[in-house]
């Protein structure tokens, strides 16, 4: 089963390519997948009939109850056969239905096949979560199939409507399944064996699941999406909206019936909504002129019929429900295929314009009339067999499990529904095939021309309709394993003749009344028009959608004013009110030390002064310098705290970002814009000051409380030993970065690459970052002469060139030594970046390109590749990701050398930091220069 399921999705994936080569004939190849599924299911028949389910189990996340279990019982077997059989035939039908040059075939083929797979998965899944996933997959595929031709706005609306209604139900169902899964088991067969305890919780969960089933199977009040879905191409209507997807809800109800039939609400909901749907669908079907819509309302009506049977919940009703599911799938898909052929042959589906199609397409007429007769419940077709057993089951239900009143009301409702069914079946045959004309005038037959091959699917299906009516007894045997799971007496066999039973009488009554109703169609239509329109569910849906949209607008306007300071203030206030206030209550009793050393206090004072001055200054450059001062002060704090690595990196980063600020600020106005006097004096400023002060206080309080509250020993207590034993390094901080917590570092360098890409794309919207200078390498003299004369400084240039190589050596030293001493990839990369920055400052962008004739993107990519490869490499040697190993070598000059593989990872970090630096200097240095020059030229 798993393989078959997989085959569907593989086929769906290759379908677009296949459609390019074979065009519409690709459908014939794709049909093989469901056809093989069908054959496999047939081969399982004897096992399933014996009551042995076919089970396949794949464990996925057992802790969450997410196992991928497949299970084939009677119910699954029947639905599976319908899904795969009708699916294969629908695909064959598609091969002639679509125009050879249809441009969207590639998409349709893939989605249609994927739908067949999802539907098969839905049926055989034995896990609630898997079932839900397949359930929603069918919804999504149905959405794209309904919107196959998205040019028409009505199609788009139909598709959206179907999607929203069914996902609404799907979400309700998800909540229900989670409750059921948590209280019982996520494995459906286990849940059936050991149902969740009866109680309010279970009742609510079951009703929520019913909402999902009823929306999917288009029951009142959610029925309206199904007629709307007729915007889909006809094969889709035949397959999804008649034979398979709309049966998913019925399937779910039948599946849960054995354990939930007695849950409060289950029977009333199903019986009332089912009967209502059956009668409403039939009533509406009689008003349609579009024969496809007529069938759609017919489907709604029949789904209501099935819901009623499922709702009764006795052995006999269960058996009848299965017979009805089978017969409906057979006749309704044929009828839709017929509509497709008529549409294609005549160019219309309006029964007022169709005349004498029976004469131009006699075989089609025979096939369709057979199916319509099965729909109406005429002998000797399977539809008659199903309806007989259904009426019998309903009559018997008055003695249990239903009460006498409910039982007889149900019978009455079913008879009314059947009358309407007979009438609209007749209307369909008459409308699609007969010649209509007022008082003897006989209009010319509608011209008809359609490929004969389209008849393959309907002919095969009608033969089944015709044949299976005679095999009531074997069908009973096949369905029996399901029926016995329900309460009630042993049902009678499905058969064409049970003798003169009450059910037969009711059938005769329904047929005669239905035909009479058809004969009186003129007056009846007038009556229908006179009756006031009751509530239209589609209007309610539209009003709801409008209200939802309005609500969204109001909420958005209220919550998203668009002002950044407002957003930030909101966040800060929440921080103050919740964690801040809570921390303040915990403050008494905490302990603090004054300082670690007097030096710390001195540096701290320096930082505080810097911060205050940075806030007060309104000169951009000045503020930057004060902020920089706090950064250097921080480096001192690091040093005092026994963190030389941090101090080194902080100094490098601070220097680098100071230069970056200067590079950008040279373009921006010197001073910050003056606020209007009123605003500066107003409460806003005091408010900001108060908020900022409270935030500082709150964070300090939280810190004191949190530090005092630590109960566990820090995990890093084990680091020193681990660093040397597993990481083979003495610098614990560096080993932490490249080994113990290397996953963090991997994530971080990915962020660096992303940031670098973002920076480059913000500055270089149109141009490339490096002027490929290695392709036309220039001499030193040329490079120097490309810098504007008044900006040159010979001393700076010469000194830079001398110092440049020393800095490169230093950066390499930091990289290589970092594992055991101060340094590492970050510090090394920053030094190299500073070296490049200095070259740029001295000689401009040509000098930078000369010093680093590579694209920053290349360096970044290489770095990421090196890190990733070195992270994954241990896997090849049977290790785990990011495991370190040590390689010891005896080299002639260096003597005994120990190389730790983590160094390779650090080299990746080194390259990425260098790449980031290069990227930033190119963007904020060279890039801004270039744009300034361009501006001068254009000015």
């Amino acid at each position, binding site marked *: 089963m798993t393989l078959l399921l997989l085959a569907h999705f593989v086929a769906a994936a290759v379908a677009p390519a296949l459609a390019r080569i074979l065009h519409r004939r690709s459908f014939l190849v794709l049909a093989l997948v469901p056809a093989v599924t069908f054959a496999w299911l047939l081969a399982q028949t004897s096992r399933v009939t014996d009551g042995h389910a076919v089970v396949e189990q794949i464990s996925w996340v057992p802790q969450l109850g997410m196992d991928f279990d497949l299970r084939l019982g009677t119910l699954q077997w029947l639905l599976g056969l319908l899904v795969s059989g009708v699916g294969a035939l629908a695909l064959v039908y598609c091969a002639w239905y679509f125009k050879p040059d*249809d441009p969207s075939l590639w998409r349709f083929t893939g989605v249609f096949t994927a739908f067949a797979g999802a539907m098969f998965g839905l049926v055989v899944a034995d896990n609630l979560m898997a079932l839900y996933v397949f359930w929603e997959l069918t919804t999504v595929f149905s959405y794209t199939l309904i919107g196959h031709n998205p040019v028409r706005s009505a199609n788009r609306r139909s598709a959206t409507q179907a999607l929203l209604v069914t996902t609404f139900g799907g979400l309700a169902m998800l909540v229900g399944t989670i409750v059921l899964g948590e209280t019982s088991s996520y494995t459906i067969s286990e849940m059936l064996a050991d149902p969740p305890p009866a109680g309010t919780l279970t009742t609510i969960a079951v009703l929520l699941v019913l909402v999902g089933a009823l929306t999917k199977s288009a029951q009142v009040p959610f029925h309206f999406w199904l007629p709307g879905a007729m915007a889909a191409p006809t094969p889709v209507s035949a397959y999804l909206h008649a034979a398979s997807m709309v049966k998913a809800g019925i399937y779910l109800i039948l599946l849960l019936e054995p354990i939930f039939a007695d849950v409060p609400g289950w029977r009333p909901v199903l019986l009332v909504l089912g009967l209502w749907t059956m009668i409403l669908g039939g009533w509406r079907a009689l008003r349609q002129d579009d024969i496809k819509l007529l069938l759609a309302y017919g489907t709604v009506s029949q789904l209501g019929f099935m819901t009623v049977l499922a709702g009764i919940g006795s052995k006999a009703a269960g058996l009848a429900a299965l017979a009805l599911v089978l017969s409906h799938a057979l006749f309704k898909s044929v009828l839709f295929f017929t509509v497709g052929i008529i549409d294609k042959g005549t160019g219309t589906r309006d029964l007022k314009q169709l005349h004498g199609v029976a004469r131009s397409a006699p075989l089609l007429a025979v096939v369709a009339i057979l199916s319509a007769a099965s729909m109406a419940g005429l002998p000797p077709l399977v539809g008659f067999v199903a309806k007989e057993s259904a009426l019998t089951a309903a009559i018997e239900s008055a003695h249990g499990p239903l009460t006498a009143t409910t039982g007889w009301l149900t019978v009455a409702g079913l008879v009314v529904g059947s009358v309407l069914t007979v009438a609209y079946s007749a209307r369909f045959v008459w409308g699609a095939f007969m010649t209509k004309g007022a008082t003897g005038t006989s209009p010319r037959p509608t011209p008809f021309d359609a490929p004969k091959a389209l008849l393959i699917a309907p002919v095969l299906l009608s033969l089944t309709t015709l044949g299976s009516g005679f095999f009531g007894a074997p069908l009973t045997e096949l369905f029996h394993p399901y029926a016995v799971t329900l309460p009630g007496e042993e049902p009678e066999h499905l058969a064409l003749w049970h003798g003169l039973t009450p059910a037969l009488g009711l059938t005769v009554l329904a047929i005669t009344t239905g035909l009479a109703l058809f004969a009186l169609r003129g007056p009846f239509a007038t009556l229908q028009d006179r009756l006031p329109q009751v509530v239209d569910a589609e209007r309610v849906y539209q009003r709801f959608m409008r209200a939802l949209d309005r609500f969204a607008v109001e909420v958005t306007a209220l919550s998203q004013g668009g002002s950044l300071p407002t957003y930030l203030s909101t966040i800060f206030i929440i921080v103050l009110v919740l964690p801040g206030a809570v921390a303040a209550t915990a403050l008494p009793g905490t302990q603090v030390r004054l300082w670690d*050393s007097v030096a710390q206090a001195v540096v701290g004072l320096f930082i505080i002064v810097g911060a*205050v001055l940075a806030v007060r200054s309104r000169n951009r450059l000045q503020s930057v310098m004060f902020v920089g001062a706090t950064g250097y002060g921080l480096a001192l704090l690091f040093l005092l705290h026994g963190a030389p690595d941090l101090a080194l990196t902080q100094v490098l980063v601070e220097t680098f970002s100071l230069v970056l600020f200067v590079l950008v600020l040279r373009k921006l106005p010197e001073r910050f814009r003056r606020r209007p006097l009123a605003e500066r004096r107003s409460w806003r400023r005091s408010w900001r000051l108060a908020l900022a002060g409270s935030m500082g206080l709150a964070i300090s309080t939280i810190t004191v409380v949190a530090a005092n509250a630590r109960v566990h020993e820090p995990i890093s207590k084990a680091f020193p030993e681990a660093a040397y034993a597993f990481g083979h390094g003495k610098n614990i901080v560096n080993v932490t970065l490249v080994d113990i917590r290397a996953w963090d570092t991997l994530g971080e360098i990915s962020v660096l690459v992303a940031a670098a890409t973002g920076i480059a794309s913000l500055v270089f919207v149109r141009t490339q970052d490096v002027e490929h200078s290695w392709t036309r390498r220039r001499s030193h003299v040329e490079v120097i002469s490309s810098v504007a004369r008044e900006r040159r400084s010979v001393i700076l240039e010469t000194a830079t060139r001398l110092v440049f190589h020393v800095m490169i050596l230093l950066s390499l030293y930091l990289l290589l030594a970092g594992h055991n001493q101060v340094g590492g990839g970050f510090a090394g990369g920053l030094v190299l970046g500073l070296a490049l920055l200095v070259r740029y400052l001295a000689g401009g962008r040509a000098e930078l390109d000369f010093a680093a004739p590579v694209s920053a993107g290349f360096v970044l990519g290489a770095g990421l590749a090196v890190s990733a490869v070195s992270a994954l490499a241990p896997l090849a040697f049977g290790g785990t990701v990011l495991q370190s190993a040590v390689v010891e070598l005896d080299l002639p000059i260096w003597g005994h050398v120990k190389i730790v593989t983590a160094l390779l990872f650090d080299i990746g970090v080194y390259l990425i930091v260098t790449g980031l630096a290069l990227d930033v200097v190119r963007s904020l240095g060279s890039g801004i220069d270039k744009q300034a020059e361009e501006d001068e030229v254009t000015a």
Partner: protein
Amino acid sequence: MNAIAPSLTLVVVAGFLIAAGVYLLLERALTRLLLGIVLASNGVATLYLVVSGPAKGAPFVGARPTEEMSDPLPQAMVLTAIVIALASVAFVLSLAYRQWRITGSDDVPDDAEDDLIKRLAERDEVSSTYDPDTQSTTTADEEDATA
């Protein structure tokens, strides 16, 4: 007991840095906002020093006994944070530059889209993506579905 009695100096320094950072964050000029971020992240880096406990020696194996080493884990975290901060400084600077190139100022204005929605709400109107077509999907004009 693993509780830390934090150094008040560090706590106060962090508080000041964060307060200054928040103050600048509430401004509208992008470069000032950025300085606010830098100050605040310096403040947070200081908090990591609080977490690492009393000041001790540098964490190098063999240089000193384990008990005399400062906690290496917060150091590693701050090290990555510092480098990320550099990347974000560069990124926001290029944003500010771009904003200045396009609008002539580096101020962050109120979102125009949000303003639009506010006006929709005032006029009690639906959103621009709402499809006002209420004709029933089953009675809309039909075309050839295979077209």
